[in-house]
């Protein structure tokens, strides 16, 4: 019976340790984070039902590090014409009239030591959904991917433009092609 106690004890210890380890690796990972927004903006209606291209609003993604959140004035490009009035749209219009910026809750947050450049990925044809999930089906935006380094490397390793090893495998075509940017160099993201 003493034996059983000990066995159980060890088992519990092991299980606890395992759980702890698993939890420890989730530190700072906010997958599934979906905060309330000042204006309940439904991507489902805009990107989904009405098929508005992502880059129409998040135009920064084409040229800049930051995809950016559209100014209220951009919203008004359409909502100036649309008759349909909901409380949310009212809020938007108020904001525009008072010329005060809307304070959104940021969903996808990277640590400050990570430099992710949207334009690089957009131009190389990485679909927004690959990192942001099926936005067009989301009523409220939610962080779909874990956004951990391991996760980033997942793609970079399978589709890197630079060979994994810096040994002889360097491809001649690498230099002819527009400069590769991804690869696995630490300085691709950390500087």
């Amino acid at each position, binding site marked *: 019976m*003493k*034996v059983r106690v*000990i066995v159980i004890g060890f088992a519990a210890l092991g299980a606890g340790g395992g759980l702890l380890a698993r939890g420890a690796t989730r530190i700072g990972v906010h997958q599934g984070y979906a905060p309330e927004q000042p204006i309940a903006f439904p991507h489902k209606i805009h990107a989904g039902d009405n098929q508005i291209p992502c880059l129409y609003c998040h135009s920064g993604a084409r040229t800049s590090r930051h995809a950016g959140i559209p100014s209220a004035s951009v919203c008004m490009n359409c909502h100036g014409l649309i008759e349909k009035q909901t409380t949310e749209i009212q809020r938007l219009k108020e904001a525009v009239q008072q010329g005060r910026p809307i304070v959104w809750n940021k969903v996808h947050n990277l640590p400050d030591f990570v430099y992710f450049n949207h334009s690089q990925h957009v131009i190389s044809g990485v679909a927004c959904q690959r990192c942001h999930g099926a936005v067009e089906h989301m009523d409220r935006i939610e962080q779909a991917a874990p956004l951990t380094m391991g996760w980033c490397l997942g793609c970079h390793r399978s589709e890197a433009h630079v060979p*994994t*090893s810096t*040994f002889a495998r360097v491809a001649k075509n690498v230099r002819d092609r527009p400069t590769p940017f991804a690869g*696995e160099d630490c300085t691709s993201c950390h500087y």
Partner: protein
Amino acid sequence: MTERYMVGSFAEPGPLLSAVATLRRAGVAIHDVFAPYPVHGLDQAMGIRRSRLPWVTLLAGLTGLTFALAFQYYTAVFDWPLDVGGKPENSTLAFVPICFELTVLIGGLGTAGAFFLRARLFPGKREQLPVLGVTNNVFAIVTHVPRESNDGDLARRIMLEHGADEIEEREGTS
């Protein structure tokens, strides 16, 4: 089922040794001998075979070695080959120290673990002492006493001849 034992306690290793020898010659089945320290020659007297634990050490050690080598090779060459100071990705010589350390570590822990299992020792186990003081200054011989024979008397006689301080017969579960 319960068994009968003959327990003889001695104050000195000398008499104990000769007693054990005589008992074996007389064909009495010695269950075990208890002593405060490992008495030289007792193994031979009891006819205990040399332990095979060193083989466990060898196996555990080799396991550690293989793991260390494989792990380092995998991480440095396969999982993410990085240019560290221009050194080759498979810097085997640099892997040697850790290979050695893990060999020793796993080898040592394996041996110790095997010992405790084999000797059925574990934390909190309630000790079974033939007589008090075997961990201090008393030596004790415990022999089996088959019911349908008079070995009991034989054992008792031999031990007395060799100057046992005390002899008693006990029942116990083996």
